[in-house]
């Protein structure tokens, strides 16, 4: 037991939690925006892959790191646009389109990788974002190294949550977005465009998902490799449900998941690691998220029109 306590009181553990949470936060906010507007975006996994690749290759080609973030976001918005066109004006099944987008975006990323780097056997490395210190805060004992020694993208992730929450609850745009996920005919009756709102939400949300993917290549690691997103997109879908479609609670969920993930890696190094195969530790965050989901989703506030395509003039 004392080994677990040792882990929990180390600053590096908490620093790792924030780092692991960052891509999840971006993508979860992206998914949350889509779902609040009434569109389930199962393209998330593939959009994270294309974001990871696009951000990384842009930096490798000579763009600055923030340029990479921008390229990643644009790549995500492109696939978001495809998703939006198919699900909103065409009203196709959001499940089928989402899975299709995931397959398409993933294979596009792998194809583009092979095309742009045909000769290499191991992917080249880039110089990723470095941790930056925040004057005053980073010098605090324990809290400093635990929370305030992160890369700019991690700070940006938390900032994103704040912006999403403010827009959703404190602006007319956010009100319209929430309403379009609850009852699109209410929005239409007020003279607003359901199509524009939903498409906009899907495109912007997809952009955020791609930034989450790019975090992996240009902040966490310094390279792109296959399978690196590794189901994080699906976790984010669960986190949105876990957070009951509220940005702050989804943030909490992302941190919780990240904490379990950081914990299991460290547990593998302890004496427990010799008792059971390491795969058991790998399972811990997923098992715990299923349990948390069961407990939390009972009082979930699902947007009433989620997954319901809107056809004008039909009752």
């Amino acid at each position: 037991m004392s080994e677990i306590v040792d882990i929990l009181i180390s600053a590096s553990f908490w620093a790792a939690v924030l780092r692991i949470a960052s891509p999840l936060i971006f993508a979860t906010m992206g998914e949350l925006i889509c779902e609040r507007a009434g569109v389930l975006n199962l393209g998330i996994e593939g959009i994270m892959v294309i974001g990871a690749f696009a951000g990384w290759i842009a930096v490798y080609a000579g763009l600055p790191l923030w340029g990479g973030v921008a390229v990643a976001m644009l790549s995500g918005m492109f696939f978001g646009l495809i998703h939006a066109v198919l699900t909103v004006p065409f009203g196709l099944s959001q499940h089928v389109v989402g899975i299709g987008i995931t397959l398409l975006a993933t294979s596009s990323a792998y194809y583009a990788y092979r095309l742009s780097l045909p000769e290499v056997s191991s992917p080249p490395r880039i110089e990723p974002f470095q941790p930056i210190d925040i004057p005053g805060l980073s010098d605090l004992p324990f809290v400093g190294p635990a929370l305030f020694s992160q890369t700019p993208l991690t700070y940006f992730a938390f900032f994103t949550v704040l912006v999403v929450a403010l827009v959703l609850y404190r602006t007319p745009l956010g009100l319209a977005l929430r309403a379009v996920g609850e009852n699109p005919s209410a929005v239409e009756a007020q003279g607003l465009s359901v199509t524009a709102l939903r498409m906009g939400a899907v495109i912007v949300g997809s952009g955020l998902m791609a930034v989450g993917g790019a975090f992996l290549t240009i902040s966490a690691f310094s390279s792109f490799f296959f399978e690196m997103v590794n189901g994080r997109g699906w976790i984010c879908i669960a986190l949105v449900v876990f957070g009951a479609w509220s940005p702050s609670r989804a943030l909490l969920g992302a941190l919780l998941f990240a904490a379990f993930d950081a914990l299991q890696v460290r547990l593998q190094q302890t004496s427990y690691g010799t008792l059971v195969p390491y795969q058991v530790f790998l399972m811990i965050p997923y098992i715990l998220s299923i349990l948390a989901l069961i407990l939390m989703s009972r009082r979930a506030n699902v947007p009433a029109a989620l997954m319901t395509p809107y056809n004008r003039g039909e009752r």
Partner: protein
Amino acid sequence: MTSETAAQGDPVLRLSGITKRFGALVANDGISFDLARGEVIALLGENGAGKTTLMNILFGHYSADAGSVEVFGQTLPPGQPGAALKAGVGMVHQHFTLADNMSVMDNILLGTEPLWRLGLGRRAARARVAALSRDFGLEVDPDETIAALSVGERQRVEILKALYRDAKILILDEPTAVLTPQETNALFLTLRKAVALGLSVIFISHKLHEVMAISSRVLVLRHGRLAGSVVAAETDRQKLAELMVGAEITPPAPSKATPGAPLLVLDRVATEPQGQRPGLHDVSLSLRAGQITGLAGVSGNGQGALADLLSGLALPTEGSLEIVGERVTGWSPRAAIAAGIGRIPEDRHRTGTIADFTLTENAILETYAQAPASRRGWMDWRAARERAEDIIAQYDVRCPGPQTRIRLLSGGNMQKLILGRVLQGNPRVIIANQPVRGLDIGAVTYVQNQLIKARDAGAAVLLISEDLDEILTLSDVIHVISEGRLSRGFPRGTMKPADLGQWMAGQGFDHAA
């Protein structure tokens, strides 16, 4: 083309020659009229006469094939709901357009501010909503979520939404269809206040007494055309009804009943409460062959519990249920059908039909597992379709054909199919729960006459209705239900509406107990 000019002042709204076709169907055929400031026009017509289509054109949900809409002298661009809103037209739809999980304030504010703005200006908005609530008598808690509101309160929110946007013309599409009589009176007070403040109102309805009560002028639509325009003070219900239907109306007049043996007997039955609504307490009831038993009561007093029990959807917790002298065990919907109980459910959309199934499929919903609809576990679609065609022909269901999805039918035609489904099985007992709610006059008369016919053929009919007129006209014996308790039966002609009203309010039960 018929044109009708308002008596006083410049019109605030002018419709000229509105024509709209849906395929071969002409929903609106050259309709023109004016609306004056401070005037209430009633738009009257049967289901499918084109009322809702006309209003959807006016509001910009559809664009007309011909004709124009002018508001305060400005022609509205067709097909743009935003334009009508800006010009001061507010519409309260029959099916509310509210987001249920959001607050009253959020619903009112939706779309009133430019999207790209920081802050919602809630404080100023709140003051304005409070002032409007006060001026128009529209009391509602702005912080409550819509889901927690009653239907009447939701309608108030819809009206507030329109007023908040400075609507000068209010269009209300069948506003009273979902209201209790008290709520209807409150709505009429609000509308009178609005008119006194210079607003104009278009009131769409097919309830004649309401139309007479609220409007100054009545426009009657029939088959997409303006069939007449009359001053409300100079007409009466009979004349309006005839204009609406285009023929003389004869209300049903059942002959004297010849009651036979009791077919279904409840003896001191109790059931579980249904959420907020009471279950049955100590209910004894006997439904006799060849008799219509009317059940009067204010909505939510146990009518649902009784209907569910008799339909096989609920089990008695106490007491017994006998059908033709045999005590029932193993009660279920299927057992009810097998016992010869025909069920006309309260909500034809929710429990009576499956919207996206065809008429054929809906016609055999209760009998799909038996011959002729299926044999040895295989569907016989030809036989099923023949059955549907029978019902369509015999019960005058107006539809393109048996393979049409039932969603596309009007309420009246949907109800005729359900009625046909029930009556074709020659049921011994018919549970008719609100069988004519929301139907137009033609369909109401039709359904009521069919119930009388079934009675005369020897069926025991239980008629559950909130409409006292209907109960008094059709029932041979009347029971009143209040908080799950059932009064004794009053034979035809022994009770006046006021007497029943006292029982409905729960008096009379106390010393009977």
